[in-house]
């Protein structure tokens, strides 16, 4: 009840508010007779031709309709493609180095005593006892009591440097430092691999001063194989008799081995930071036909892919760079890590990088070529503190390839290329709504416009343009002096970037007006465009943007000075608004009041189509129901003429209208007076107003 109360009073309110109505379906509650304007419209040429860029106002205020039909378009893709061949390179480790390392072995007094005690000789035992007592109780002893010594297989451990190594180049030095209080007269030793027992170095020293005196000798290690565990045979140590001396157990004779300048063929070693692989090369673009020679290219989108295989049993820190590819002032450079390979196996990894935005210099490393870029790769190992096996036989295999490289800009010489535009047929939309009748223009201007967005000179040859009216099966072949001849095309300019507009007159001394007066809906064309017909005159200064294009347009200018005879325009519009679908109107008379400012008589027909596209009803005015505006002696409209068209709609027809989804409007125009070219002026307009005298149903909520 409350809702109905609101409905009642809402209806009182709203209907009293100029006759607007509830919109509910179901049964009507009561009917009213409404007499009300519904819709109105005022149409000038600006309304009739929605895109005002199609309208050109002439100096006498008359109107020229301009139409541009694009025939064909060439984009950068058809001129230049950037592809690179897969670039593969296998690089072996080109160097393995060790830094300088030293290992010291001490022969202390305690060790000497221990060795004397082990000999089993009673004299040696007595000497050992005497030395131990002198050291423990700080008793001076006469140095003549020190015996000559001999130590065999003294272990020299250099595994902290490597476990084993095949030396390519390098040096081994031995330093004997005598920290004993007694000078040495003779010191003989021989250094050997512990397992292989081959001698690495032997030497004899005749005088080593006491209390810190030292001597040294060196050995070239080139080509030698060293084990990490070495042994030294000290064949003779003879002390000098210089009187009483005090000895201590920790006083020692130090033997220091130093390896330096070592490069390795292979080693199981703790390696320091070092470059192990390096390669630089140039990559050439492929597939650039017709002599295209690029000096630079900016990449709009695309990927750089790097695939790496490594046999090295250590991580390889890998750097790939294209120094000539610059983005934001920085060259293209990527760093990544290839994991260590297992012994006897290969590590594998693929890296993908976005290459968009980079500008590539394509003149090579020395700026002396084209279509070429320079790239480098470097492999490094880093100190890890762990021993790993590396060999110069290890390798890094690298494949580099690009994917979907699309340039946003290229520069260089774009070659001599020929593009055939057609033969092809394109639709012409200007007259698409004309269903029948004739329309004659007094004069038509027809131009072929080539809009060149590339920085390359060219030429165009129009082989054929034929217009067809498929409705009337009529055709016209365009004739004129510009058909079949080479016409030069100027190039676009850069900084700032401006397309070059090349317009070729196809009207003068031609049949262009006749061609348009058949009201064509199809155009058959055959046009040939060439680039750089005279070769590389721009000396590598051709350019093209990715967004650039070369388009051929057919431009039609039709001054609206015309004769129309029973010209039928047809258009289809949707007819499904909620206002219509509310089904409030039962029946009525709809009047269209027309104030016509055009020198055209007209009649109107409306065909109502259901959802299946079937015409289910129609409304038609009598012929010439819309009267033409009168014209003066200069064929110019003097005032608008008024007409009224009435359409009776009974309940049956109204029901058909409710089932309508689309309406086909057909308007038939005839210029009056007939057979006289009449100009259409900018200030001409026609006003429509639809008034409904309706039996209108107020529905229940």
């Amino acid at each position, binding site marked *: 009840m409350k809702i109905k109360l609101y409905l009642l009073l809402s209806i009182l309110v709203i209907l009293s508010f100029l006759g607007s109505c509830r919109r509910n379906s179901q049964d009507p*509650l009561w009917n009213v007779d409404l007499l009300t304007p519904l819709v109105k419209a005022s149409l000038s040429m600006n309304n009739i031709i929605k895109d005002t860029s199609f309208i050109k106002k002439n100096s006498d205020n008359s109107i020229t309709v301009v139409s541009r039909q694009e025939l064909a378009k060439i984009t950068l893709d058809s001129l230049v493609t950037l592809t690179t061949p897969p670039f593969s390179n296998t690089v072996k480790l080109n160097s393995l180095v060790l830094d300088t390392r030293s290992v010291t072995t001490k022969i202390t007094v305690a060790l000497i005593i221990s060795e004397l005690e082990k000999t089993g000789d009673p004299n040696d035992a007595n000497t050992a006892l005497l030395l131990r007592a002198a050291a423990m109780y700080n008793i001076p002893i006469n140095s003549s009591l020190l015996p000559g010594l001999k130590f065999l297989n003294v272990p020299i451990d250099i595994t902290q440097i490597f476990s084993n190594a095949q030396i390519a180049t390098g040096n081994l030095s031995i330093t004997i430092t005598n920290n004993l209080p007694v000078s040495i007269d003779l010191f003989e030793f021989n250094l050997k691999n512990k397992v292989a027992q081959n001698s690495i170095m032997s030497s004899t020293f005749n005088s080593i001063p006491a209390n810190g005196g030292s001597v040294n000798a060196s050995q070239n290690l080139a080509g030698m194989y060293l084990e990490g565990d070495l042994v030294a045979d000290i064949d003779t140590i003879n002390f000098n008799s210089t009187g009483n001396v005090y000895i201590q157990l920790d006083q020692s004779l130090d033997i220091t081995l130093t390896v330096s300048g070592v490069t390795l063929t292979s080693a199981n070693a703790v390696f320091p930071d070092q470059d192990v692989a390096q390669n630089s090369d140039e990559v050439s673009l492929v597939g650039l036909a017709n002599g295209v020679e690029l000096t630079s290219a900016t990449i709009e989108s695309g990927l750089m892919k790097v695939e790496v295989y490594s046999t090295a049993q250590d991580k390889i820190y890998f750097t790939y760079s294209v120094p000539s590819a610059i983005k934001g002032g920085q060259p293209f450079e990527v760093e990544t890590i290839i994991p260590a390979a297992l012994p006897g196996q290969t590590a594998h990894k693929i890296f993908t990088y976005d290459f968009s935005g980079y500008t590539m210099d394509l003149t090579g490393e020395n700026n002396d070529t084209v279509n070429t870029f320079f790239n480098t790769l470097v492999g490094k190992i880093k100190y890890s503190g762990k021993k790993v096996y590396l060999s110069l036989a290890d390798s890094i295999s690298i494949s580099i390839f690009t994917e979907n490289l699309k340039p946003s800009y290229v520069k260089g010489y774009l070659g001599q290329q020929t593009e055939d535009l057609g033969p092809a047929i394109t639709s012409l939309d200007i007259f698409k709504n004309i269903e029948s009748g004739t329309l004659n223009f007094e004069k038509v201007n027809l131009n072929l416009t080539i809009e060149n967005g590339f920085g390359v000179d060219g030429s165009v040859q129009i082989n054929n343009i034929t217009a067809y009216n498929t409705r009337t099966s009529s055709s016209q072949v365009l004739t004129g002096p510009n058909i079949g001849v080479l016409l030069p095309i100027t190039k676009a300019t850069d900084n700032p970037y401006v397309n070059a507009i090349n317009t070729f007159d196809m009207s003068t001394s031609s049949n262009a007006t006749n061609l348009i007066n058949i009201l064509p809906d199809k155009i058959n064309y055959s046009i040939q465009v060439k680039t750089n017909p005279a070769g590389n005159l721009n000396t590598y200064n051709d350019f093209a943007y990715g967004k650039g294009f070369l388009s051929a347009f057919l431009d039609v200018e039709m001054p609206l000075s015309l004769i129309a005879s029973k010209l039928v325009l047809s258009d289809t519009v949707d007819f499904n608004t909620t206002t219509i679908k509310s089904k409030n109107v039962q029946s009525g008379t709809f009047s269209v009041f027309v104030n016509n400012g055009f020198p055209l008589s007209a009649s109107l027909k409306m065909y109502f189509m259901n959802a299946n596209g079937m015409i289910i009803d129609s409304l038609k005015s009598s012929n010439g129901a819309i009267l033409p505006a009168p014209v003066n002696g200069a064929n110019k409209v003097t005032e608008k003429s008024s007409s009224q068209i009435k359409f009776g709609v009974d309940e049956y027809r109204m029901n058909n209208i409710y089932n309508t989804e689309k309406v086909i409007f057909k308007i038939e125009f005839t210029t009056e007076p007939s057979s006289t070219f009449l100009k259409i002026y900018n200030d001409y307009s026609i006003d429509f107003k639809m008034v409904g005298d309706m039996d209108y149903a107020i529905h229940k909520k």
Partner: protein
Amino acid sequence: MKSRVVLAFLLFISFFSNAQIEIDKMERLLLDKKDSIGIPSYKLLINVYGDFYLNSNSLSNKFISSLLYKGNFIDEEMKDKNTKRLKKYNRLGVDEHVGIQGVYSTSKLNYVFGIDQRVFASAHFSDDLFEMVFRGNTSFAGKDANLKKTSIQVYDYQSLYVGVQKQLKEGKYTLGAAASFIRGGNYQGLKMKNTSMYTEPSGQYIDLNGDINFSRYAYDSSASALKSRGKGAAINLFFSMKNEKGRLNFEVRDLGFITWKNIKTYSGDSTFRYDGILINDILSTGTSIASDITVDSIAVETGIDIEYKNKTTFLPTIFHLNYIFSPNKRHSRTIGVRYMLSPGYIPRVYLREADFLGKGFTLVNTFSYGGFGRLDYEIGLLKKFKNSFIISANLFAFEYLVMPAKSSGHGLNIGLTKLF
């Protein structure tokens, strides 16, 4: 600050006034005579009620019934019959209450509290407006339709109220007051003071000459209870004076306002011409040729201002004066006049007689003139049970049932009261 004002107000009314069950209610006929008809004293009274009242000085009951209840098609014959009943200016009103009320008595004060849901509508309109609404404007082609003095409003609101009553001079005088806090729901209202509408003979344009003010929310049933579209406040005042023969009562109810928030308002005072909705893109392929013709599109086309703003409306305040006296123990008579501040409502004078029939039954007959209608008759019945229950029913439907096509107005009040 607001809470202090409210507190001060409550203290004020608790000192001076006395709120109680409103004097319209038939239960008062029994409660005023409770001593003589054997109703014991009570500490607490709870009353649940529902009232519906609809009346008009011109629209017949049959017409209203078709429109609101039965949904029958209103044909030309029915329109013709009702047209004959039309005055130059016509009135229509609807008042619907549902609520619960309580009174708690102490030795010094009685406390009153309750919740009331009200739907209220009133209309004051010309015969031309009726003709336009129910027959259309075709018959007005070339003529001015008189829309002067049009006032139509429909809205609903809820009030939560508390009050007190106090007796002075040993019950000779009673003062009472209550304060209501109000939550507004739906609202629509139209006012046209000096307005006419002209339809061009061929229908090419329609002119609205004069002023117009139309405010509305889109109707939303949930707004009746859940949404709050407006807030307001009101007070009720009560005074009675008793003498040896009877009691004089005076009551003011719903003296207050609602401020509706952000309501869509169409307004203007000029000549507004509607000559069709302008279609700019009638030739655009793929677009519709008929835009929706709505109140908004018409307002835009004619230049009527549309804005969202707050709007304050006064409540339909009731002023009620009556005198109740008892010629004997079995009868009680009431003479009173009731006026409501609402367009279309004229003072309603009534005479009521209550017969206490025994066995707890009381028959009540009421004759009245005015309000939204004209001369009306109501019949009511009360029954008390077990000295603690009272049920009441008052039917205003005799004319509706007997001669619906020639009468206006109908209604029904029912109530159940429990005494503790």
